[in-house]
């Protein structure tokens, strides 16, 4: 495939037409959608395999969700990482080792900006450009199908369609709020915000706040409310394991990976986890929190050292699930009624691919795509989704290897299409494999939860298979 397809040599004349509109052929160039952490890794790793890359980003900077200037960024002033540095960085571009164990979100943005500059990625990114539509197109030469990508200025302008050899979707999954439905919510007089609209503690000052949801965001906001608000209730559906950020004086994920590296069986790790929790945090029911109704590792890990501390100070009052809203009141599952002025729904986000026909990603009725290795479309070998995983660790190490795999896969498809398609069949046969040993508590987003060790081992295995074919 072509080396270096710079932006300046966009074909000036269209030779193909689709539905009466011109299509500009970009040859063997690959299209990447989004320039957040996942998109940047895709651009870099595709470039490393000598692909030409056009990356479209609707905002004017890199960093995606981690760039607080962006409309869709969910970060709030105090957002810190919950995985420590060695797990959070791209494995081939270490974060400075004099940074703290758990960097602040602004540092993560600085890191992405440096990554983009270090590897010269910006020249391949079209900022302020939005992808409207992505449609497959038959290759007249009989090769793997190509893609017509329709783009438009994020703030308007005429659409334009380009034809690409492959598409990597990296549009993130933490921007489209998931809001549960409650009776009476429409009549409720208080303010209701989704956590995505929460920016900093000043929004809480002097208010009576109800935080709904015990994800990492919900716990962070509850802790801030304990410090800023007049009153804080924290509503959770069930009991959770609130892991501290440190155990034995070291970041807790580093301790955990030591156990994983030893390949200790899950049951033993769960036992060690419980022991450690007992020694460091203690019995949660003593604090009025519900006891966890599941074993450790069965839900997405919650890492927060301060939540239990503030519950112990009386700054946070744990309450059960919300049953219904009334004009000024909120009724809880246990029948109690509280009167908050501000309700923050830390109820998560849902992935969305509004520019793709659902059948291209084999999206089922619950809105979940069925992907090979949680990244490759099953319909066409030249469509992939980067970063659609919810790991029990950071996403960026994973996304690096996902995009390395995509780049090597596309290269193999180019150089040895027959062997590539044979491998494609065996990968398809892997079916709906889950990359975790535990049976996860069901929830709308836990379907893309993966254990980082299981998943990375699977990626490593597939990379070796591709290397054997190449």
């Amino acid at each position: 495939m072509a080396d270096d397809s710079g932006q300046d040599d966009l074909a000036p004349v269209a030779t193909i037409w689709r539905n009466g509109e011109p299509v500009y052929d970009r040859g063997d160039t690959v299209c990447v959608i989004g320039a957040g952490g996942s998109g940047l890794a895709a651009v870099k790793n595709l470039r490393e395999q000598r692909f030409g890359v056009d990356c479209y980003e609707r905002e004017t900077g890199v960093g995606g969700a981690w760039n607080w200037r962006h409309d869709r960024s969910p970060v709030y002033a105090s957002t810190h990482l919950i995985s420590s540095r060695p797990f959070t960085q791209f494995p081939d571009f270490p974060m400075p080792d004099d940074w703290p164990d758990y960097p602040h979100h602004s540092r993560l943005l600085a890191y992405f900006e440096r990554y983009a500059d270090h590897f010269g990625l910006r020249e391949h990114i079209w900022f302020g450009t939005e992808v409207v539509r992505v449609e497959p197109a038959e290759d007249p030469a009989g090769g793997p199908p190509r893609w017509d990508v329709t783009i438009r200025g994020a703030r308007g302008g005429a659409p334009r369609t380009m034809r690409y050899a492959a598409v990597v979707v990296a549009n993130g999954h933490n921007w489209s709020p998931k809001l549960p439905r409650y009776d009476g919510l429409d009549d409720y007089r208080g303010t209701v915000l989704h956590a995505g609209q929460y920016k900093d503690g000043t929004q809480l000052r002097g208010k009576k706040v109800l935080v709904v949801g015990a994800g990492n965001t919900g716990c962070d906001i509850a802790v801030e409310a304990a410090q800023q608000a007049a009153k804080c209730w924290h509503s959770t559906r069930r009991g959770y394991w609130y892991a501290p950020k440190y155990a034995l004086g070291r970041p807790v994920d580093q301790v955990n990976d030591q156990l994983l590296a030893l390949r200790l069986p899950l049951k033993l790790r769960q036992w060690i986890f419980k022991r450690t929790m007992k020694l460091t945090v203690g019995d949660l029911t003593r604090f009025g929190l519900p006891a966890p109704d599941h074993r450790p590792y069965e839900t997405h890990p919650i890492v927060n050292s301060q939540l239990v501390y503030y519950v112990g100070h009386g700054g946070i009052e744990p309450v059960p699930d919300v049953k219904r809203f009334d004009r000024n009141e909120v009724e809880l599952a246990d029948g109690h009624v509280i009167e908050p002025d501000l309700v923050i729904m830390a109820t998560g986000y849902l992935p969305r691919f509004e520019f793709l026909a659902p059948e291209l990603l084999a999206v089922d009725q619950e809105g979940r795509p069925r992907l090979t290795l949680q990244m490759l479309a099953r319909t066409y070998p030249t469509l992939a989704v980067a970063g659609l995983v919810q790991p029990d660790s950071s996403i960026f190490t994973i996304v690096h290897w996902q995009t390395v795999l995509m780049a090597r896969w596309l290269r193999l498809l180019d150089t040895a299409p027959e062997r590539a398609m044979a491998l494609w069949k065996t990968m398809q046969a892997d079916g709906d494999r889950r990359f975790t040993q535990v049976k996860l508590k069901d929830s709308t987003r836990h379907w893309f939860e993966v254990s980082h060790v299981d998943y990375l081992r699977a990626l490593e295995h597939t990379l070796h298979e591709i290397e054997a074919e190449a």
Partner: protein
Amino acid sequence: MRTVVMRSREWAHPSPPVRREVLSAAPEEGTRSGTPEKSPPPVLFVPGYGHGAWAYAEHWLEHAASRGFPAYAMSLRGYGASGSTPRTRFADYVHDVTQVAASLPRQAVLVGHGAGALVVAQAMARYPARAGVLVSPVFGGPAAAFGQLRANPAGTLPALFGGGVRLRRSHLFSRELQGSISQGYQQRLERIPGAAARHLVRSRTPEGPVGNPPVLVVGSPDDRLVSRATLERVARDNGGAPLLFPGMGHDLMLDARWQEPIDAILDWLEKPDA
């Protein structure tokens, strides 16, 4: 080459942070050509055991800058003006190199000398260097260690009993280098910690590099620390033949005719596709 994804030990036991000495020389205005993307890449010089950044600051650093390359030279932990950490492991040196490389403004060329070449080779298995240059590479192994023990028993023996290694002047420099100068260099050499030296005895062929960088091997057939066979083998593993500078000692960057190898390296870097 097989890709290594799982590095659980490195994740669970990250190297402790340390202050690192990095010397730099910027090219003069006007020596740079073309757009920023096309201008010469930064070059990071990594010294071998016993040496610090000073070994490059003597000649090569400024020379590379004068030819338009933004040039950097670092000291591994425990050497030069870099800080030290207790129980330094070989992996810590590799960590030091990837840290400095990632801190540079653009994707860098890594140049490693002596055991520093092995450090650079391992760093290239983690950081996608623009290109790699292995100068007089000491890749270790039991045979090389035994040879070293025979050639320099007084300097090497203490390492067997937990001590460090001292290098000999006659092994590092050719006779062409003035005695007073080589004596000065000899005095600046630092003792090599025993653990780092013992790692070389166990050392095996390093992992393959990530990102397919071109790799050049440079050395001297008259090097008394690195045999010609070693140079040939390392170069062959990287798909080429070594570039040889007969008559020079192990320390190509300090020896009398230091300019020839650095010019050859920079010429190689200037070639398209390098």
